[in-house]
């Protein structure tokens, strides 16, 4: 009961902060968007040259550092890694590909819904379908394998990179890109964005808040624990938007969004499925990175690479819609995810079969 109250409070804080960040300068319905912000960071580092989405977003660094400090404090920091790094990198790329088709991670999908963007209402069932497909693989025995304990240096890498990014943001050397127009140029003041990231990092580490787990646990175990957190984000962001006049219901003309419904649906199906196979939504990957999980950091790197790929080749969705090439990426992503899903199930069931045959032989 105490746990449930805590996760509801954590979700409410995320929803409230999201509204405040938009009021103070973040793009509309983008108080938090982990995929968008990692994409912006990739742009800030020059990994892609889409001039309107380049900015070292402090929310991301705050999330990692907040989770890191909390994990150290409660003695849950543990450097681990080595569980299918190549596949995790690929899953990060695919998760980002799907998110940049829809234009938002699952967290922004909920925030867009709370802002009256009905395109998110189309994407939500797509996301649930993606998570459901993921649970089918889990039930078949899908696994990325065990992680191993590693030297602490591995675990410090993520938080260290976060600090480096903050230094680069403040020092603003010439090789770091800053958007002069578009969403990348819009941000609440540093003290707010970094502070909000840190606070959510602390809360998400303690509560294990995860936008994918919220749906997955209902489908697998009829466990609504994480869902309460997700619902709280939505309810508080909705109330906040209504009170501050930021609630604008409709399909057309929504900020940083498009109305290609089929691709909004399928884009989030890709995100949902990739998130289940990767063991966490984009935000959760940042929190796990702060806890020292190298496997999560690899996934985040995959997301950054995915963002660069999507923008360098003009595949990402835009307010104009999804290009034919972008539509192909969605189809290819679904195929690749299916291969990864079946591939890792097959290995395990074969080895189990071998074991039982060996047992019979002996």
């Amino acid at each position, binding site marked *: 009961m105490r*746990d449930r109250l805590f996760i509801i409070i954590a979700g409410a804080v995320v929803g409230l902060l999201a509204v405040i960040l938009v009021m103070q300068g973040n793009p509309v319905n983008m108080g938090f968007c982990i995929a968008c912000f990692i994409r912006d960071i990739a742009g800030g580092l020059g990994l892609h040259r889409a001039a309107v989405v380049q900015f070292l977003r402090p929310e991301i660094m705050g999330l990692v550092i907040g989770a890191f400090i909390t994990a150290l404090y*409660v003695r*849950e920091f*543990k450097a*681990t890694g080595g*569980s299918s790094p190549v596949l995790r990198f690929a899953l990060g790329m695919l998760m980002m590909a799907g998110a940049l088709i829809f234009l938002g991670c699952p967290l922004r999908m909920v925030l867009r819904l709370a802002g009256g963007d009905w395109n998110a209402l189309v994407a939500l069932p797509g996301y649930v379908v993606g998570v459901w497909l993921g649970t089918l693989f*889990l*039930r078949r025995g899908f*696994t990325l*394998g*065990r*992680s*191993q*304990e590693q030297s602490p240096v591995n675990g410090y890498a993520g938080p260290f990179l976060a600090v480096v990014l903050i230094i680069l943001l403040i020092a603003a050397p010439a090789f770091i890109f800053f958007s002069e127009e578009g969403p990348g140029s819009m941000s609440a003041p540093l003290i707010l964005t970094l502070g909000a990231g840190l606070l959510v990092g602390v809360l998400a580490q303690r509560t*294990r808040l995860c936008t994918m*787990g919220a749906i*997955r*646990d209902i489908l*697998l*175990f009829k*466990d609504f*624990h994480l869902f309460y957190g997700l619902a709280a984000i939505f309810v508080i962001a909705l109330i906040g938007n209504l009170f501050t006049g930021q609630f604008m219901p409709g399909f057309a003309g929504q900020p940083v969004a498009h109305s290609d419904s089929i691709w909004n649906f399928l884009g989030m199906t890709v995100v949902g499925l990739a998130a289940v196979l990767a*063991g966490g939504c984009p935000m959760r990957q940042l929190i796990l990175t702060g806890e020292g999980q190298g496997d999560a950091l690899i996934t985040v790197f995959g997301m950054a690479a995915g963002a660069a790929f999507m923008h360098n080749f003009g595949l990402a969705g835009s307010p104009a819609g999804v290009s034919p090439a972008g539509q192909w990426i969605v189809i290819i992503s679904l195929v690749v995810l299916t291969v990864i899903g079946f591939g890792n199930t097959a290995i395990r069931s074969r080895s189990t079969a071998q074991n039982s045959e060996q047992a019979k032989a002996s």
Partner: protein
Amino acid sequence: MSEIVDCRGLSCPEPVMQARQALQQAPEDTVTVIVSNAVARDNVSRAANSMGWQVTVEEDGEDFKLNLNK
């Protein structure tokens, strides 16, 4: 000798799925689940509680040993 489910190195939901399966099929009243992270410790404990099992947690070096009793 109680059944031991080794979930070290696995991330949720795998430990919960394996633990639930073991509890559903357990021939005896005790099952031991070994996990290596706090998330799995908490999630397996919650799942076991909801299935009517008592949980005691033992720290075992870097791992957690969950003794589940009906």
